């Protein structure tokens, strides 16, 4: 059997509620800047939760990425965020973007999404019900099909390898990284643009509001609303955006003399099958632990080597369970437990985009030598305190060289993903 290709990260891109673009995002996460704000449109629609995370994208930024023709009748925020993050990552990797570039057979993309173009879909439904199907225009399918984002990115970048969209709820982004990594490891592609994106707004978030899983207690204090690992956590805050990473075989990266942000050592995805305590919405603890253990085995590292964990940690009642699962999977407790943080404390839960945006943050920590603060956790949950030393949850940025970082995501349907990054 051929030896596996080593896989490294050579480009990053991000559109997050607290910052757009890598330089601003790096600054924002070090400073613990919240991207959560009050949303009048949610209040007007009688939402219980009237706060959310929407990236502060300006028209000027948009016009740097999409042409006036692409923006004509365009109403899919997730595809917009995905294109911006994906193109930033591609540029950041030192790769050209030109509509005249030759077909690139060695490069592909796995870019995930949960629901695409919700607003566009709503617009279309109104027209159809009004017996006006003829007036939908030519891009409704492209903006609302699940693989819309990869259809846009594939054409913009001229990708000739695999071009596909994965979907596994809130695990989506982390799963995309693992899928791209495996394709390069197998020698089937040299480069894979991986990541995920999510729409913003009432039509996507409404279902979560109805489930009462998002917080209704912070409409007057939006920036304190997302409280992972806190005793006063009261549900997650919905977010949106996109994260993107250019994965590349080490061989190709070295040949090009590309900047290497980190190595993707390995990872794993699995499911708890909605058995043994797992349900459609709650994870099977055994499967979560199995996923983390198998990811470490795939990466060929010992639990003791993990310096920092970027958890799923959404700010629901499940956070203590997640800490317990990490502690048991790593067999590390108290002050022996690695540092752990949750980017959701600053940007909310960006749903399908969460795994990718949070992985971008994890990789920046390795490259730049810091651990971002997990804000709004000054009152650590009592159960969490009995498992780990609260000092392991940074309240302020810690500047420190770190070697190995783990990122996990868990999603509805009882699905799990865990990926291990190492500095290079």
């Amino acid at each position, binding site marked *: 059997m051929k030896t596996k290709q080593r896989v490294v990260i050579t480009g990053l891109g991000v559109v997050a509620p607290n910052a757009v673009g890598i330089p601003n995002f790096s600054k924002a996460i070090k400073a613990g800047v919240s991207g959560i704000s009050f949303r009048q449109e949610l209040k007007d629609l009688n939402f219980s939760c009237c706060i959310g995370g929407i990236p502060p994208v300006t028209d000027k930024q948009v016009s740097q990425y999409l042409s006036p023709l692409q923006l004509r009748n365009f109403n899919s925020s997730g595809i917009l965020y995905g294109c911006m993050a994906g193109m930033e990552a591609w540029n950041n990797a030192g790769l050209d973007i030109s509509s005249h570039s030759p077909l690139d057979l060695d490069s592909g993309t796995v870019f995930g999404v949960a629901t695409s173009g919700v607003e566009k879909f709503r617009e279309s439904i109104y027209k159809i019900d009004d017996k006006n199907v003829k*007036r939908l225009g030519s891009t409704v399918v492209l903006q609302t099909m699940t693989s819309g984002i990869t259809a846009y990115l594939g054409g913009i970048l001229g990708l000739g390898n695999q071009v596909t969209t994965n979907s596994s709820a809130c695990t989506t982004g982390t799963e995309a990284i693992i899928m791209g990594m495996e394709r390069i490891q197998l020698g089937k592609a040299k480069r894979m643009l991986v990541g995920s994106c999510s729409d913003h707004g009432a039509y996507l978030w409404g279902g979560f509001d109805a489930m009462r899983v998002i917080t209704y207690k912070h409409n007057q204090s939006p920036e304190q609303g997302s409280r992972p690992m806190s005793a006063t956590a009261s549900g997650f805050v919905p977010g949106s955006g996109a994260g993107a990473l250019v994965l590349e075989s080490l061989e190709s990266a070295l040949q090009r003399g590309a900047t290497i942000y980190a190595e993707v050592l390995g990872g794993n995805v699995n499911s708890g099958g909605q058995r043994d305590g797992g349900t459609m919405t709650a994870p099977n603890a055994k499967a979560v632990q199995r996923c983390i253990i198998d990811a470490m085995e795939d990466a060929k590292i010992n639990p003791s080597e993990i310096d920092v964990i970027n958890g799923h940690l959404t700010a629901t009642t499940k956070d203590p369970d997640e800490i317990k699962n990490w502690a048991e999977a790593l067999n590390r407790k108290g002050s022996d437990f690695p540092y752990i943080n949750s980017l959701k404390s600053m940007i909310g839960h960006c749903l399908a985009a969460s795994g990718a945006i949070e992985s971008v943050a994890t990789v920046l920590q390795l490259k730049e030598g810091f651990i971002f603060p997990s804000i709004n956790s000054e009152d650590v949950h009592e159960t969490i305190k009995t498992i780990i030393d609260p000092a392991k949850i940074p309240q302020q940025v810690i500047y420190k060289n770190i070697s190995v970082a783990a990122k996990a995501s868990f999603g509805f349907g009882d699905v799990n993903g865990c990926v291990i990054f190492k500095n290079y």
Partner: protein
Amino acid sequence: MDKEALIASLKTIVKPYIQDENAFNNLNENTDFIADLKINSANLVDIILDVEDMYDIEIDNDAMEKMLTVKAAMKIINTKLNEQQ
């Protein structure tokens, strides 16, 4: 409708969709939307919608299929405008 005025207004409609600047600058009655202006064929339906909005007319499927050149478009628009009078 006056021919020159019609060509000028068609020009503003197709402008966002064209991919050949030269052919656009030389747009005349014989210009073909796809062959000359290199408009993506999927965008032809968007042009039809823009024409409908601009002249407040309705273009049926048969007419739509024929609307591939500036000349054909002018003929269809004029026919529909005359029907309304």
